[in-house]
């Protein structure tokens, strides 16, 4: 056992863990951060888009030295059937500012940078060290952790669980449940390397401008899922994810779906001639508001993916992670400043701060969305994309059919596929869930 006692132990060096460890160390607390990977970031997987506003609140001048790939000037949403896509694009020169709002990043490089900042802030960062269990006092308060190293027990006033989506420690400790298959998505991703100028010409970009494509459609074969294509400096990240419960039901394999997505005529030319250098897979919490577990207890708080804080509708995760890490650290700092014990009654401040932030407000707004999309997957991810594609095709295809007949044909096809009542029901349910 280590005799030295810490103010806080942070388990994990992802977005939430680094945000928490950095904020705690900056506030002058004695912090030990434990990461099982070889380096911070070696186990972390994300698409990845990073939202500047949330990082600015932690490291205001991050743009000076953080490894950022491209700032996003164009967002494309595509609804796809097997041979076409119907898209909505938003591109604006206003995104070319000194302080852009969104960047693509490569987590391996970004997390290494973030971890360096954590060390510079004064935290002690140990990698290749896995926390195996929590340590309690006789009253059941968490007072430290045990690790897989010899003599590996360390004590602290509070433990911040930033262990990621699987949450093995929290589950073992009974703070949360194993994620249910319908509450997590399995996403796979490939990094396709292409020369910088090829990426720029294919996506109509210059300098550090970036473009993002997000798509839903028949490629997910009726499962609840999304695909994406993000431009980095010298590579394009292509990936897709579907709910684990859907994969289990359909027996589809994720990499096969990704292969066929890459062969789609709208995608193939964008990545043609590239070299795949990396393949990664990751679980994403999709349960939303209703899946958020207990967030604090005697001697512990949970942040980031481990707390299921992920906005599936807006595909935001890392900013919720960073913000929850920062708020947990702020709450711990306040309790510590008052010289109060790190017990549930005091740490509930963290939940209050999180409830008041965009994190929980956003998740609350979409609390019914995961359930709706899950139970109506066939309609939203197979039937509607096909209908929309057909409608768009009918609209632009000129063959001498009177326009009034075309409109009738389109509405007939919608009604035939979903019935009048079904259409109204879907619209109402979607509107209610969006509210």
């Amino acid at each position, binding site marked *: 056992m*280590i005799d030295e006692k810490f103010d806080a132990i942070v388990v994990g060096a992802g977005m939430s863990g680094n945000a928490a460890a950095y904020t705690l160390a900056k506030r002058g607390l004695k912090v030990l951060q434990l990461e099982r990977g070889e380096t911070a970031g070696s186990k972390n997987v994300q698409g990845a888009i990073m939202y500047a506003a949330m990082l600015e609140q932690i490291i205001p001048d991050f743009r000076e030295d953080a490894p950022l790939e491209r700032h996003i000037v164009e967002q494309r949403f595509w609804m796809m059937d097997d041979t076409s896509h119907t898209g909505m694009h938003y591109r604006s020169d206003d995104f070319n500012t000194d302080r852009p709002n969104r960047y693509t990043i490569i987590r391996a490089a970004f997390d290494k940078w973030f971890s360096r900042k954590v060390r510079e802030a004064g935290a*002690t960062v140990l990698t290749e*060290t896995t926390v195996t269990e929590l340590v309690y006092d006789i009253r059941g308060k968490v007072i430290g952790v045990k*690790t897989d*190293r010899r*003599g590996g027990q360390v004590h602290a006033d509070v433990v911040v669980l930033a262990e990621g989506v699987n949450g093995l420690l929290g589950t073992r400790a009974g703070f949360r449940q194993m994620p249910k298959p319908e509450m997590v998505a399995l996403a796979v991703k490939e990094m396709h390397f292409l020369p910088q100028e090829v990426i720029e010409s294919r996506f109509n970009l210059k300098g550090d401008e970036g473009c993002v494509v997000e798509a839903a459609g028949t490629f997910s074969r009726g499962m609840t899922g999304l695909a994406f294509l993000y431009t980095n400096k010298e590579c394009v990240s292509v990936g897709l994810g579907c709910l684990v419960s859907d994969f289990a039901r359909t027996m589809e394999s994720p990499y096969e779906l990704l292969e066929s997505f890459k062969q789609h005529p709208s995608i193939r030319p964008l990545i043609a001639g590239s070299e795949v250098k990396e393949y990664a897979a990751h679980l994403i919490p999709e349960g939303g508001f209703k899946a958020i577990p207990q967030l604090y207890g005697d001697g512990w708080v949970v942040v980031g993916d481990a707390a299921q804080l992920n906005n599936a509708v807006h595909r935001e995760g890392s900013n919720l992670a960073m913000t929850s890490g920062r708020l947990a650290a702020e709450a711990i700092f306040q309790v510590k400043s008052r010289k109060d014990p790190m017990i549930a009654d005091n740490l509930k401040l963290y939940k209050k701060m999180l409830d008041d932030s965009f994190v929980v407000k956003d998740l609350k707004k979409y609390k019914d969305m995961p359930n709706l999309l899950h139970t109506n997957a066939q309609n939203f991810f197979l039937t509607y994309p096909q209908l929309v594609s057909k409608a768009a095709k009918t609209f632009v295809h000129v063959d001498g059919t009177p326009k009034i007949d075309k409109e009738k044909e389109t509405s007939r096809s919608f009604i035939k596929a979903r019935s009048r009542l079904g259409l109204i029901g879907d619209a109402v349910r979607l509107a209610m869930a969006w509210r």
Partner: protein
Amino acid sequence: MHIVVCIKQVPDSAQIRVHPVTNTIMRQGVPTIINPYDLFAIEEALRLRDAHGGSVTLVSMGPPNAEDTLRKALAFGADRAVLLTDRYFAGSDTLATSFALASAIAKIGATYGAPDIVFTGKQTIDGDTAQVGPGIAKRLGLLQLTYVSRIASVDPEARLIEVERRAEGGIQQLRTQLPCLVTMLEGSNTIRRGTMADALKAARAQVVIWTAAEAGIEELTKCGLRGSPTVVKRVFAPGSRAEKARMIDPGTSARDTADALLDAIFAAQGALEADVAAAQASL
């Protein structure tokens, strides 16, 4: 006992790629590791320290980011680490490297006590020369024990060391006087996992960083590119083999299989058959 271990940061050979046009190794983005042979040297040094007391000093020459490699090695439980880093060292071949490391070890000796044993790995996986260890021994006037597969015993009082050395055709048992330099063979031990206390100490340790001047090196012409007579004339990637493997029908007996194999070999290499026939005729 004071034991010095020389280690090197090398690109992870499992993830290395060769640039298709220039044929040079693409180091960018390739993760670095501790030269795998050096891990056997580190473990052997730690075992001797644990058995006989004393301390283990790690030394490396490399770019500033080699500090991470040294810190990682410290987490196994070494006592201190010294990094030699200076632009004067850039482009060193084995002669210049052994000069710089020998100078640093002399300085380490003056600062932390004269080393009883200097360890290196058998060779590095990026240079594959196995010259730096012997080069250091020669410059420091140390007895050298190369390709050591086992350290049988060390007697610090009598200043004696007994080792097993892998040589062509067998194992040599050698005994010599301390101080000496040992280059360790692969597979001679298994690197330990540092304790929590070791890891904590390593995470907070200050790696000692020396420039050429701080390491006491005055003859800068013996360093880096200027001190390196080795010239890389050409780097090339071996072409991929055009031929595919051929399956041979094994036949029912060993003799049939051997005959079938010989037929296949001679069919592909006509000259070989003539050579073998000539050799048999001359017997």
